[in-house]
């Protein structure tokens, strides 16, 4: 008989890095979207919505005015003009309603899983369990958006136009704050809609494939093409660094800034007790990088890893 003990889970780190297990069992590192970029995305989306509504309203108001003006100048066709104006008002109401409810749905159901605002801030929504993001999830998280955002806003605006007591306005403000601050009080930065829908908001990755490191002449043979010098490092000379230094060196080589190359070469030479020469920094570093990586990767295959120089 299997007794399921409550699993002791370590709390996820607060920096927003999470591991997501895909249905194939691959652990994917993901980064939760920063609260600031989510706020930014929301502001952009609201801006777009308001602008759309404004343009819609202006167009419809203009159309209505034109019709009205026509009916005033040419009396007699009152009922048909009335119907046309009515139709305009209905179309306007429907469009406003659609903007409110369908905007987020339409974009989040798309292939990017992101509204224009989210796209601009580089974030998107994903299913929290690592499975498929379904239409029902998108629906649920956006239905909740209505009470989180639009309802208190509506309440607030409608109260402010009266000159009565301010209790309702205060309530609306509290309500709004309760939901707005919700993402601040959980580690996964979920808003109420995310909880109900089983989703979260993550950063959308956008990485380019960089060049292969070990194809240059120096890397393959250890011989510099400019000076002809041959760089060979002994095991002891390679043993001073670990993976962290290797990846720092990789970054320096990829960025390829002469002053950084020179500084790093000098640091390595000091450590090895070599005399740093000038003019051939890149070849030296490429050779050192390739040989260090070969050594560390060989160790990896044997199950030995060296995290950094202190390990």
């Amino acid at each position, binding site marked *: 008989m299997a007794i399921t003990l409550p699993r002791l889970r370590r709390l996820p780190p607060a920096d927003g890095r999470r591991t997501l297990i895909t249905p194939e069992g691959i652990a994917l590192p993901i980064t939760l979207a920063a609260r600031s970029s989510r706020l930014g995305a929301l502001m952009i989306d609201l801006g777009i919505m308001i602008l759309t509504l404004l343009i819609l309203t202006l167009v419809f108001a203009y159309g209505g005015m034109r019709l009205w003006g026509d009916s005033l100048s040419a009396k007699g066709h009152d009922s048909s003009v009335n119907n046309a104006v009515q139709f305009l008002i209905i179309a306007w109401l429907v469009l406003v309603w659609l903007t409110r409810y369908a905007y987020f749905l339409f974009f989040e159901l798309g292939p990017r899983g992101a509204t224009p605002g989210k796209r601009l801030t580089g974030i998107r929504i994903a299913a929290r369990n690592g*499975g498929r993001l379904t239409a029902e999830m998108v629906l649920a998280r956006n239905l909740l958006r209505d009470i989180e955002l639009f309802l208190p806003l509506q309440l607030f605006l409608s109260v402010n136009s009266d000159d009565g007591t301010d209790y309702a306005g205060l309530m609306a403000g509290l309500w709004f704050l309760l939901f707005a601050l919700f993402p601040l009080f959980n580690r996964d930065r979920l808003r109420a809609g995310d909880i109900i829908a089983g989703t979260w908001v993550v950063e959308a990755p956008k990485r380019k494939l960089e060049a292969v490191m070990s*194809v240059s002449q120096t890397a393959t043979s250890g011989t510099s093409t400019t000076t002809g010098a041959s760089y060979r490092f002994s095991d002891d000379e390679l043993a001073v660094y670990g993976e962290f230094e290797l990846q720092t060196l990789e970054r320096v080589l990829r960025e390829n800034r002469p002053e950084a190359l020179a500084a790093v070469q000098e640091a390595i030479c000091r450590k090895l007790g070599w005399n740093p020469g000038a003019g051939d920094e890149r070849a030296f570093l490429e050779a050192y990088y390739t040989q260090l990586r070969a050594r560390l990767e060989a160790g990896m295959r044997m199950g030995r890893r060296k995290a950094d120089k202190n390990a």
Partner: protein
Amino acid sequence: MAFFGIFGGGATASDAAVEAAALRSDRFRQEREADWTRLEAIVSKLEAGRSRRLSDADVLALPVLYRTVASSLSVARETSLDAATLAYLEGLVQRAWFQVYGPRVTLWGWLRRFFGGEWSRSVRALWPELSAALVLMVAGTIVGWLLVASDQDWYYSLVPTDFLDARVPGASHEALKNTLFGGSKEDGLSVFATYLFSHNAGIAILCFALGFAFGVPPLLLLIQNTATLGAMLWLFHGQGLTYDFVGWLSIHGTTELFAILISGAAGLHVGRSMAFPGKRSLLEAAAESGQRAAVVMAGVVLMLVCAGLLEGLGRQLIEVTTVRYAIGYGMLAFWLLYFFAFRRDPHSGEAA
């Protein structure tokens, strides 16, 4: 498709053209790079919404390439220290994962599934909450009636009246009857209908969304709304207008009250599963019930469109009580049949 193992990459033909790298892990990369860039191209097209430009071969290749690249990532993690390549692969697998496991259903396909059984099945799954909500609504009506019957002042706190409203205690038979049959002179019926719809949809969504607070607010909303109904019922009953009032209410009310009943039940469902998650974690329980309730709510909005049309157009244009009854209870029968007798599996038409 056979197992795509560690060494299953298909790019060996182009290897001769590439300068061989010194490191084993870089050679590993060179052998598979063609697959990676092909997957990246496919994913980029999908992300840009240009899926129609993909060839059939690409569409078929996507899941296979996804698994190939994912296994490349697993191998690279164990054998390579190239940080940039690892980061690239992680990003690429994640992007492909979003596409492979994204909401791949088209709007049309979703609608077909929704109407073809998903909606009615989700509503049926709420039956305990539906019964509870029904009991509450009946109780709310009775309470409203009894309160007003015992003290007329309750009417004013239960029914929101403005002072032009004829529907107040002490109103004459004629005045009340006029409110039931005076509609056809009103202007802008269809505008009114649209307004009512967006108003009611707001209330229903509120009813659902407040279920988040462990289901208590929907309970209160249901009782409060039906208490209003009970109070008005008492008022019209007092002047012998019960039959006409119920007809006036039924033409749209069967659909509208049913929709509100369902949205209240959906809110209760979410609240109940959060209060009593059982063996699941709280978040899992909330997500599961939330998604089911979302389907139900999409349907509720549609029902409210019907109710809005019936209220704004039907009620004002049809002034015969028997016809009002026929339409109202015809609609109710339709909804009940659709939800509880229509038991088709929404996934039967699809491959697993």
